[in-house]
């Protein structure tokens, strides 16, 4: 019995289960635009864009007009924001939690990579995202040789 448990958050829905329970169903075939390029913005700009452009709290880094416009363009055709968190019980090897966060946009999938105070939104194929998801589930030992 696996000690690994996944928590999936998709929009306002949340589910907990094993990979056997269908976590992979968050993914469907999505086109990968050859023209898509990584986008790196302030985390606060992404938070504001996902919140519908609400102003950031006083003192938080303020997104530039360019960042706001780039995110508006990316999200204009609609999007689904999901996040998978792997939790491991303390009785196993103590790897702890790990997570994968994705924006499924009209222009394809974007893997979110956090580099505080910035976040990179990297274009990714569904295969690349699934490989990351499988690596998250299998853990570092079984993921040796993993490719993305």
């Amino acid at each position: 019995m696996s000690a690994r448990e996944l928590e999936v958050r998709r929009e306002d829905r949340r589910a907990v289960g094993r990979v056997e329970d269908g976590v992979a169903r968050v993914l469907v075939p999505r086109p990968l635009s050859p023209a898509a390029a990584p986008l790196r913005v302030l985390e606060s700009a992404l938070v504001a864009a996902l919140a519908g452009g609400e102003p950031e709290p006083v003192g938080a880094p303020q997104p530039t007009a360019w960042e706001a416009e780039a995110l508006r363009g990316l999200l204009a055709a609609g999007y689904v924001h999901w996040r998978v968190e792997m939790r491991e019980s303390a009785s196993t090897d103590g790897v702890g939690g790990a997570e994968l966060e994705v924006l499924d946009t009209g222009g394809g999938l974007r893997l979110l990579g956090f580099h505080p105070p910035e976040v990179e939104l990297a274009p990714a194929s569904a295969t690349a995202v699934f490989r990351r998801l499988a690596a998250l589930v299998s853990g570092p030992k079984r993921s040796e040789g993993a490719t993305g």
Partner: protein
Amino acid sequence: MSERYAHPHARFSLSVPAPFALLEEEPDRAVLALEAAGDATLIATVEALPADARLAELADAGLEALARELVGFHVLDRTPAVLDGQRGVRTLAHHVAEGRAMTLEQWRLLADGQGLTLSGSCPTLDYPALAAVFDAAAGSFRR
């Protein structure tokens, strides 16, 4: 290290990745299995098709058959791919077998009235380590 495998009747060959070995050989297919555990396999299959068969139809029919046979079958990705220098299609899918999450990656090619399918299958927990092995096997596939 890998060895070259050539089917004695069907016209195809591919490099057998080091941990895999020939398990079964039939007139229209070869099954290569991971030696340590038989639950990771590479299967190459050849089927005769009508002259007007189309690649998309070959892929559709294959995926529909799998959806009928496998529990929780779900297609994750479907993309153009090059196999043996020709235009093919690659699919990635997920299903459950005996309570275990399984991943199935397939490459399909249509050539000279034949449909060629290379299928890499393994427990999802092993897929991160085997994805590159499956990629390499597909890259080595020749007719």
